């Protein structure tokens, strides 16, 4: 498998994690140690300001009906993947401002909108589409609709990108954006 990992400036990616395949990590995103991201079925694109916590796994699964060229798995901005969650998805798109709580599992053929919350230890395996602002919670998988999107974790992101470099080896950003956007990425990069 060709490893082609693109880390944009401003992203905080720990060295101690497994990244395989074609992965793009957006600026401002924080990836904790011991994270596994495997892009075997196609590229994975993670947008800006996501938090991916320890032991979470994101796999772009290979499927039989593989398109050519393979469709990327796009993960929107401001998503939070809490400790130990698992996302296996061959189908395209995860919206933004979602929260995947601890130990949750999202199987293949689950489409996720924006502002959704998959509760701790919830197991979504049947093919389904979560419309925007859906909250799944509890051992019985109750579903309710939130009125507004989940609040963003910008404070937490700020803190993490400041603290992470003190305690972990980081992967260096290897993509430098063109001129107009580089200024912006400087703004979002952590202050020493």
């Amino acid at each position: 498998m060709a490893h082609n990992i693109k880390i944009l400036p401003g992203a905080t990616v720990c060295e101690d994690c497994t990244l395989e395949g074609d992965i793009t990590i957006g600026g401002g995103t924080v990836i904790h140690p011991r994270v596994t991201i495997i892009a075997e079925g196609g590229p994975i694109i993670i947008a800006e300001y996501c938090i991916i916590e320890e032991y979470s796994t994101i796999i772009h699964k290979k499927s039989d009906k593989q398109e050519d060229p393979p469709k990327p798995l796009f993960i929107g901005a401001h998503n939070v993947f809490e400790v130990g969650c698992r996302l296996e998805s061959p189908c395209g798109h995860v919206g933004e401002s979602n929260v995947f709580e601890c130990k949750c599992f999202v199987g293949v053929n689950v489409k996720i909108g924006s502002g959704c919350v998959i509760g701790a230890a919830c197991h979504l395996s049947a093919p389904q589409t979560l419309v925007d602002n859906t909250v799944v919670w509890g051992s019985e998988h109750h579903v309710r609709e939130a009125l507004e999107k989940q609040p963003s974790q910008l404070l937490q992101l700020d803190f993490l990108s400041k603290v992470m470099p003190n305690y972990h080896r980081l992967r260096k950003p290897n993509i430098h954006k063109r001129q107009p956007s580089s200024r912006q990425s400087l703004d979002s990069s952590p202050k020493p």
Partner: protein
Amino acid sequence: MIPQVDSHYCANCLENMPSSEARLKKNRCSSCFDCPSCFHTLSTRATLAQPRPAPEAGGGDAKVENKQPKKMYYLSCFNCRWTSRDVGIPDQPVASGGWPERSAPHAARVSQLLEHYRAVAQQEKQDKLERERKKFAIRGKYITLTDKTGLTGAVARSIAGLGDAGAGAALAGFAPAVPKEDVEGLPEDAFTKEVNLKQITSMPQRLASPEWQPVSVSRLHPLAKLLSVKRSQRCRACDHNLTKPEYNPGSIKFKIELLAYYHVPEVKIISCEMIKPGAKSTLLLKLANPTGHEMALQLLPAAPPPPPPHGETEAATEDKDDSIEKSLDKSLKLDKEPRWPHVEPPAILTRVTPPAVTLTLAPRDDAAEYDDDARHEPSHIILWRKSNKLALRLELTTDPAAVEGSPARTALTVEYSYRNTVPQSITASQNRDHTLYTTVYLDLGTVGSAGL
């Protein structure tokens, strides 16, 4: 055992309150809330809100004036992510309290009914009192003091036909409920409109707030947290306090704690072979002595305990009769609750072959765990022995009639010596040592198939 309520407290903020206050607040905490969606405790969250500048004042002055961000608070559930903003409750400027209270739609009627029935009860009491007085008056041949001195106030009023003024007014002003024939029909689209389950509350959610019973999710309001109670327990037979918690809700200690755990030897299953019909298997048990005195133990086949020796019997039975009679009055008042739920002993198909030895258990010693001289006495029954514990090997024989898959149970009676450390009256001091019996039922999983 008679449970008694000791004190009311809120499990979240640990505030305790007397029972009268708790009743006034409908047994709910005034500052803590439960999530109306999942019944988890709500937490207060703070946000920095920029006060919105007035729409007409677009100039720079207004912005400077309102620059100071204000801390606003809202309630949020960490379990299902419900927030008080979801149902349009405005954020509060203070962290606790001040949440808008809704008045129940039928509050007026409920209080009216309450008042009415209170009046009815009072009236009945008055009537009864009067009847009794009349009876007394007819029977009495002698002039009573009240007859001599004239009438008491209450009698005078009742003779004048006034009754109790307050009660009469409440009774008169009461409008009984009127039955209605025609009820509003269902809307046209009741069966055709698609139901959005996310908008409709579930049954538990509705029943959690009986005053409102919200139909749609947007009407869910935070529920004031229900209070918990600390309870003490009393013996039904002798009225002794068995357990009594400390009053402080933050403390989990007891003032009085007389639990069998501290007096009866502990029996634990270490392991057990598969129980098969008609076969023998081995059971490993651990026995522990929780008391501070040496304990002599003997295992007996499960049977009703033998009657205590003669001298003791009579005293014991006498005592019992006495206390029963004493407690009878009390238990009559307590609605004659069942004393002990009578449980049929489960059918025992697996029998223990008890060893005919008396085992001695050393007293419990908290310091013993620091010295490790496990005295091994290799014998066919005792596996090991360590301070106040010992492990036993027992043989089980299962009836061939045992059905595969049914629960495997066995029973044995433990005879143990017990030294009463509670100082009794001086006369009873000679028999501090007792021999007591406890029947232990052991659940050993399910009966396996004979072929295995």
